[in-house]
């Protein structure tokens, strides 16, 4: 078991170096502000993708309403920082808690559904959240919420992303995470092995929603204005694409998926009409040649080229 601790230290070391390099690029004004913003978005998308992966990939509950939880976090966060002048950290915690509670409450009835039905229900819920926000005048309604302080820095995004990655990696590699994997693999067998399937489905859903809330707070504080239109179901779909592209059930995959999708859409920002076509093509090609996603169930820690660095990596210890 000691190798697990060692792998964690290698990962953290690598992350610190990566952070130093990127932070240096930003501080030295080598990156244009366009790419700086995209760097933030990548980090936020990684949090979104990996938390959605916990629900969809590891627990096998097909959820399509992830942008809704992000919206809850975003709006709770901006109200606290803009109207109540609370510190950013308080907004982050409140955003996570609010989205988590909502996820918990929504999870109880919807997680009784399976497969397509759950997908439709969560899709609807995401839209309901958005439309409810649109009709609350206190937060600006459809026009959006203006005057948000610019709190989100690269350091916040990077270290919260790291926190989310480690949190979910450790969760998946624990007794609770194994229960989630068992539910994905065979619910009846999981139940007959003594796993309270309802409890763990709701647990995964709540954790996923809470991290989406965190991502929402970070996202909102990167801009001057947010509107309900930032959280449409197309956005939920985008996160799903990242997860599927990277590989359902792979944290490394979610990171890669978030990177690829964010950079493709940034690179194609000047040709918005081609963006969806290229997305669609990429996904179709993917289904043909690599239906399990870029990484499948693979993680960096158990890939052959990295064997020398990581000792005997466990599942998802990446």
């Amino acid at each position, binding site marked *: 078991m000691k190798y697990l601790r060692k792998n*964690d230290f290698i990962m953290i070391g690598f992350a610190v170096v990566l952070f130093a390099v990127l932070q240096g690029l930003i501080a030295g004004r080598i990156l244009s502000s366009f790419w700086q913003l995209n760097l933030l978005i990548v980090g936020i998308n990684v949090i979104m993708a990996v938390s959605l992966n916990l629900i969809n990939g590891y627990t096998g509950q097909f959820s399509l309403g992830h942008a809704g939880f992000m919206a809850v976090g975003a709006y709770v966060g901006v109200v606290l920082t803009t109207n109540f002048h609370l510190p950013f950290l308080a907004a982050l915690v409140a955003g996570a808690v609010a989205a988590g509670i909502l996820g918990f409450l929504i999870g109880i009835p919807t997680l009784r559904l399976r497969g397509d039905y759950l997908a439709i229900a969560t899709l609807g819920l995401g839209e309901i959240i958005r439309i409810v926000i649109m009709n609350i005048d206190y937060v600006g309604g459809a026009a959006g919420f203006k005057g948000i302080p610019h709190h989100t820095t690269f350091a916040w995004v990077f270290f919260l992303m790291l926190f989310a990655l480690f949190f979910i990696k450790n969760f998946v590699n624990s007794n609770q995470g194994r229960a989630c994997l068992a539910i994905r693999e065979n619910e009846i067998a999981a139940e*007959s092995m*003594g796993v309270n399937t309802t409890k763990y489905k709701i647990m995964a859903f709540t954790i996923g929603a809470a991290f989406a809330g965190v991502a929402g707070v970070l996202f909102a504080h990167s801009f001057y204005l947010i509107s309900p239109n930032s959280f449409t179901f197309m956005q939920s779909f985008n996160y799903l694409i990242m997860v599927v592209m990277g590989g359902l059930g792979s944290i490394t995959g979610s990171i890669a998926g978030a990177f690829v999708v964010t950079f493709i859409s940034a690179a194609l920002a000047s040709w918005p009409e081609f963006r969806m076509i290229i997305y669609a093509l990429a996904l179709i090609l993917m289904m043909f040649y690599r239906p399990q996603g870029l990484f499948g169930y693979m993680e960096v820690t158990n890939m052959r080229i990295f064997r020398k660095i990581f000792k005997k990596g466990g599942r998802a210890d990446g």
Partner: protein
Amino acid sequence: MAKELLKATDVSEVFGGLKAVSDFNFHINKGELVGLIGPNGAGKTTAFNLITGVYQPTTGEIQFDGKSIVGLKPYQITQRGIARTFQNIRLFSELTVLENVKIAFHFHVKYGLLESVFRMGRYFKEEEKIEEEALKLLKIFHLEDKAGELAKNLPYGAQRRLEIARALAAKPKLLLLDEPAAGMNPQETKELMEMISWIRKEFGLTILLIEHDMSLVMGICERIYVLEYGMIIAQGTPDVIKNDPEVIRAYLGGEA
């Protein structure tokens, strides 16, 4: 020794107009190895599903260890001490052999959510313990060298053995085996028989098994119940069952 571990009284299960099991009365004493046989569609698996909480009995009462288990969810029944295998193998096929067994330790693990996400406290100690125990179980079933393989890549016989290993990891008092020898050749069946007798002694188990392979049933069961059309038509020791005219009629047919 003669204490009743499991007792079903007047249990019936009705699916629409079909009486899958009716007036089902039976008991298993602590330490016994009991067989449940009968032609296809007689209601054997339904009986298993009633005991394990997958179905709720329409009427009747099931007691385990002196307490009623009617109305409990399957996972609660497992936590009380009943584990099972499935007729159509239900492994966690995309997970490794070792993980399959580890999952069954689920409710015996003593660390909470915070300890697992921050890897504090009992996390490492408990995980090490589980891994050790899981490997021990795999060794008993000759699967230790396959520990890292995905369950779906195991040959059929090994998958059946893995199911039993996984059920044992839940540390049950009563083990229900649903056709453990299905699809095995005579040699494998013989080995399985020996294994079942051995684990029963080693773990102090009580076992109820459904089986079509008569050599296995007659060879190891101490008592046998025969089901037909959802009703128990005979019970007794293997010798009594072999010569029971009702049983012979049910299996071979005969003038009604």
